[in-house]
């Protein structure tokens, strides 16, 4: 940075100290927005490029202010009285009162005064944070960022590190983990007990607990590949797709309504959800998975528009009165959703931050933002047939027939009315008998056509292209204030300055290619990291949607890269990645608490144990229905009913975007399901009393308790057997003697059905059921 600066603008390196973090914050939060809002219109590179620069003064860099304009230096750092900029904003000189339209508010002037007084700290103008600012025409020092920030560097598959514990590693993953543990003087936890390992695998891969029979079979299997066989079985289960689709739907901010102020329900969104479930089950290679979601409708072979629901079922904002400003704002907000979901979800970059100004921390320009936004601006929402062509044609032909018949009847009546000289309404009464018969015949034919008409073929919400025009940068994010044209192309930090512009239609297929080319350093890292996080509760980069300069750094950078490279080498296969992770000693560790290790690494950044965790709400409700034997295991299809009338898996219930349309909304929110207003980085876990009110009083919990209580009561073999079977079903383990004793005491010698229900409710509410060890 310093050397670059030395070449470009030697003058400002002298006498001005690097800003301290508080000054950076002050500048970025107060001063820069103020200058951008009030001054850049006439005093910036942009203004210069458009020939609108006034007084030869640029105020978008410290150098510009120091150099000044036609009236000389505008700024004397540390001395407001001598700084022309202060004289201008104070309206001290009539010829130079700025901004010309209206004087700044008092606290705005105060901000500028304070800033000049403190020496006009300008981050990046001299050495100091943040490191991304550069000089001259370039907003960032691209080369330096590309070579210094981990996420922009090429992915390198490093050799496995050496660790002294030779026997522990079961897979490549373990070498990386053990090396870091050993370097910190820590050892991994012992493997999890067999029944807990099985339970963990079931909940992790399919989101349902194992049955007592499945537990018994696994415990009895002593072969070395016993666990590998379980993993294969689970990956082959259709429930795998349901569990893992739910993770992806968090990223896709999936809901069944549009999310404008009316939150209008979208009737066919479930087909996108089913598409995601099917894609996971079919192990669709991740690069194709993304391509279909960005541009499935544009694929030459096997077009697959259902995937584009990823964008199409996103929030689409509208106004409610036709006010032009409101419309522009709604469109801008909708575009921001597309760019944000695309960039954070697939690339781990917060491109939407560059909507109004160049990104303050990451190397992303407004031109980058509008290059991507332009792609989506050339699309429209479309309902695509999701049926064979013949079915679609048959439907259209039959509808055509109905319309034709309706027309014939209308024409017949019109002709008769003209002939008889009556009005259209009275004509029927005046018809002769044969004419009446003809009319009845025509009508009967219409009825039969209607009756025999095939139902409307299924459709999916998707995107289609609507144009191929580049859009201008919207000044300060306002679509009604167009700036310079931003050719559609990929982000400059990744694709370079000379990245070819997108030219085919909206450019989505080209965009998909930019995302999935192997030398894109982000895509593979982002998904491998997400998958890791979904398996471990914490990802290697603990900000899975932000790989930028403000995101966290990977705890195991070489491992992340190794996994990403290996993932791409092996066909972007997610199931292969699951296998690698589940068969590692790292994943199979117990989650046991260890005081010594906890005190050294309480956050488990080094992975000395499996993270203990709580089931996500969907898996918890599914588990409750599974252990009572009530779960409807049907895979796919629309939500048949509201959640409390349904026994289907939770992924299939309808949810709205604003969280208030469906029964499920409130319940899911209470247990930490994310609001579908935008792409979710990771779920949080909260514990609030209302969750326990649900467990104590909800009709759902009381209902499950009754079913379980009756089941227990009907089991043969007396309390020990009844409890054994139930504990296995609920917690994957037999009860301890103390638990048996507790139950026996509580139930009494001759418990009635109600007592059994109350007892069953306690077992269903126990922490062990919602917990993953």
């Amino acid at each position, binding site marked *: 940075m310093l050397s670059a600066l030395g070449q470009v603008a030697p003058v400002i390196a002298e006498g001005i100290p690097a800003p301290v973090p508080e000054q950076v914050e002050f500048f970025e939060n107060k001063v820069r927005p103020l200058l951008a809002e009030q001054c850049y219109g006439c005093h910036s590179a942009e203004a210069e490029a458009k020939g609108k620069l006034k007084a030869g003064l640029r105020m978008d860099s410290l150098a510009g202010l120091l150099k000044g304009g036609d009236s000389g230096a505008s700024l004397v750092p540390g001395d407001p009285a001598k700084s022309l900029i202060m004289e201008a904003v104070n309206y001290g000189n009539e010829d130079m009162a700025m901004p010309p339209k209206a004087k700044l508010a008092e606290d705005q002037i105060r901000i500028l005064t304070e800033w000049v007084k403190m020496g006009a700290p300008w981050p990046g103008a001299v050495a100091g944070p943040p490191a991304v600012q550069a000089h001259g025409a370039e907003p960032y020092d691209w080369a330096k960022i590309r070579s210094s920030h981990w996420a922009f560097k090429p992915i390198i598959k490093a050799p496995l590190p050496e660790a002294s514990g030779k026997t522990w590693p079961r897979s490549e993953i373990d070498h990386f983990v053990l090396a870091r543990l050993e370097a910190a003087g820590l050892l991994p936890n012992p493997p999890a007990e067999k029944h807990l390992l099985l339970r963990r695998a079931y909940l992790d891969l399919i989101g349902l607990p194992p049955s007592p029979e499945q537990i018994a079979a696994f415990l009895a299997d002593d072969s070395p590949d016993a666990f590998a066989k379980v993993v294969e079985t689970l990956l082959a289960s259709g429930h795998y797709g349901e569990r893992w689709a739910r993770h992806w739907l968090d990223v896709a901010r999936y809901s069944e309504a549009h999310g404008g*102020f009316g939150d209008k329900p979208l009737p066919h969104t479930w087909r996108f959800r089913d598409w995601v479930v099917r894609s996971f089950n079919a192990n669709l290679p991740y690069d194709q998975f993304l391509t279909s979601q960005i541009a499935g409708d544009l694929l030459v072979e096997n077009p697959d528009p259902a995937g584009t629901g990823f964008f199409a079922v996103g929030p689409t904002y509208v*106004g409610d*009165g036709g006010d032009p400003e409101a419309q522009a704002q709604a469109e801008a907000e909708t575009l921001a959703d597309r760019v944000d979901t695309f960039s954070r979800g697939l690339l781990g970059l917060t491109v939407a931050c560059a909507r109004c100004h160049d990104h303050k921390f990451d190397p992303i320009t407004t031109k980058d933002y509008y290059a991507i936004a332009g792609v989506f601006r050339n699309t429209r929402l479309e309902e695509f047939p999701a049926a064979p062509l013949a079915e679609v044609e048959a439907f259209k032909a039959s509808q055509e027939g109905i319309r034709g018949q309706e027309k014939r009847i209308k024409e017949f009546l019109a002709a008769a009315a003209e002939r008889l000289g009556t009005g259209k309404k009275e004509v029927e009464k005046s018809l002769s008998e044969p004419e009446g018969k003809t009319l009845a015949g025509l009508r009967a034919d219409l009825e039969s056509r209607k009756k025999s008409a095939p139902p409307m073929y299924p459709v999916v919400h998707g995107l289609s292209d609507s144009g191929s025009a580049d859009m201008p940068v919207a000044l300060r994010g306002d679509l009604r204030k167009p700036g310079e044209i931003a050719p559609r192309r990929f982000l400059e930090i990744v694709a370079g300055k000379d990245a070819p512009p997108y030219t085919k239609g909206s450019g989505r297929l080209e965009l998909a290619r930019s995302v999935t080319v192997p030398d894109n350093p982000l895509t593979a890292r982002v998904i491998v990291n997400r998958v890791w996080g979904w398996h471990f509760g914490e990802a290697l980069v603990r900000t899975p949607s932000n790989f930028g300069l403000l995101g966290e750094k990977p705890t195991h950078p070489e491992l992340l890269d190794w996994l990403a490279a290996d993932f791409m080498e092996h066909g972007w296969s997610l199931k292969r990645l699951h296998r690698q992770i589940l068969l590692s000693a790292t994943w199979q560790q117990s989650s046991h608490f260890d005081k010594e290790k906890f005190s050294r690494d309480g956050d488990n950044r080094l992975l000395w144990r499996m993270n203990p965790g709580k089931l996500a709400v969907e898996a918890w409700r599914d588990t409750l229905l599974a252990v009572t034997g009530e779960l409807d295991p049907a895979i796919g299809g629309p939500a048949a009913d509201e959640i409390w009338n349904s026994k289907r898996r939770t992924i299939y219930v309808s949810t709205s975007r604003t969280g208030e349309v469906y029964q499920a909304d409130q319940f899911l929110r209470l247990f930490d399901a994310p*609001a579908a207003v935008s792409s979710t980085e990771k779920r949080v876990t909260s514990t609030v009393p209302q969750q326990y009110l649900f467990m104590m*009083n*909800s009709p759902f919990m009381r209902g499950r308790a009754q079913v379980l209580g009756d089941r227990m009561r009907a089991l043969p073999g007396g309390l020990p057997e009844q409890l054994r079977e139930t504990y296995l079903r609920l917690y994957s383990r037999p009860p301890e003697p103390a638990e048996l004793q507790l139950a026996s005491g509580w139930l009494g010698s001759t418990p009635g059905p109600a007592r059994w229900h109350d007892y069953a409710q306690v077992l269903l509410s126990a922490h062990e059921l919602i917990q993953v060890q």
Partner: protein
Amino acid sequence: MKFLQHELAYRRATQQQLTRREALYKMGAGMGAIGLAAMLGERAPAGELISPLAPKQPHFAPRAKRLIQLFMPGGPSQVDTFDYKPMLAKHAGERPASVDRKTLRNTKMGLMPSPFGFKQYGQCGKWVSDIFPETARCVDDISFIHSMHTDIPEHAGGILMSNLGALQPNRPSLGAWLTYGLGADTQNLPGFVAMSPRAQPRGRGANWGNAFLPGAYAGAYVNIQEMKPDAVIQDLKSAGLSRTQQREQLDLLTKINQMQLARLQQDQNLEAGIQAMEMAFRMQFSVPEVFDVSKESDETRKLYGDTEFAKGCLIARRLIEEGVRVVQLSHSIDGYDIAWDTGHGDIIGGHATLAKACDQGIAALLTDLKGRGLLDETLVVWGGEFGRAPTSEGEKGRDHDHYGYTVWMAGGGVKKGFSYGATDEFGCSAVENRVHVHDLNATILHLMGLNHEKLTYRFSGRDYRLTDVHGHVVHGIIA
């Protein structure tokens, strides 16, 4: 008060946690991470749960501890309520250049005087329309802001702008920001309660939603017509079990959970769960009392009268007494989600009816709060999403006017018997000391002890604020 005992216990717990937080900070763990964990009710690194609604320190000493928003969706007309413009009568039917501005429907008609009489009230001599005679008696406690303006003349966007500081329903609401920033003084009720009779304001739940803030900060909605505590807190009542039976059940559950805890040695989620379950048990009995207005004295009930809106006002007072941070009460008299929009066709009938339905409740609330010594630390804000044009639409209606309208505040730290800013001589556009919605929201946060530029939440790579990149505190109305 009723909850004193566990409030005290709670505060003790919070104190300890604050100390722990400080200790961690000194150890260099970083305030941000721990502060955030605390906010989310996540496990703090060293253990126990910190409730997301635990009271938090404001940025500076607050002037108001609680907020009651009396929200008037649909756009009440300023010149027919609190912004007296005698010039309208003198220039009736004319269309001077100053009012020739584009409104939503862009009516090209002339000025229309208010059909209502105005009288002067209080020591401050404030002119108030005849449709608000009761509120008029409280003018000496009120600060009127006559120079409000907002971005667009559409209801949905305007209402969201008022409540979220954004035109689309994808940002947290003012109440959510406040509970996020301040927590609440009760753990037995939601920190933020939204109410309305019959119809929710347009945009519905987004107006009290949490968007990307944690779910605990979402407002809980009550329909005043039904007024069931169950509606505020789902599953509050046990369907079949007596208190004793349920206690027995929970004792068993606690034993089972503690056995599990002993096996695990340590598990923050479980420890927190045991606390939360006990709290849940107690809430079943304490919450319904708050909504039971039958215990109020005859005098009090008479003061409020028997409109649905007034009932909401009375519940609002009871909620804030119990430590709820924010209550938003929206007006409606039928199923219409923008009640005051009756102004398009008929200002006289629509506005008179709506005012009558809320006037006594508003006055009673201010009087009651004052009588109980609560007004000084409770901020009451009245207003809609925009106002209505001084020109006419049709024969006796008025179109939307977002260039100038009136909002008033009372209590918590604002000047009394005071008017701030002004519209032009006809009441069309704010011309003096203009106050944008962002400025109003910044001022509300300021009065509650929060710096609107510092109350931020990092989401999607950005630090979000209620006021986005705007907002200036209106110091002129602060006492």
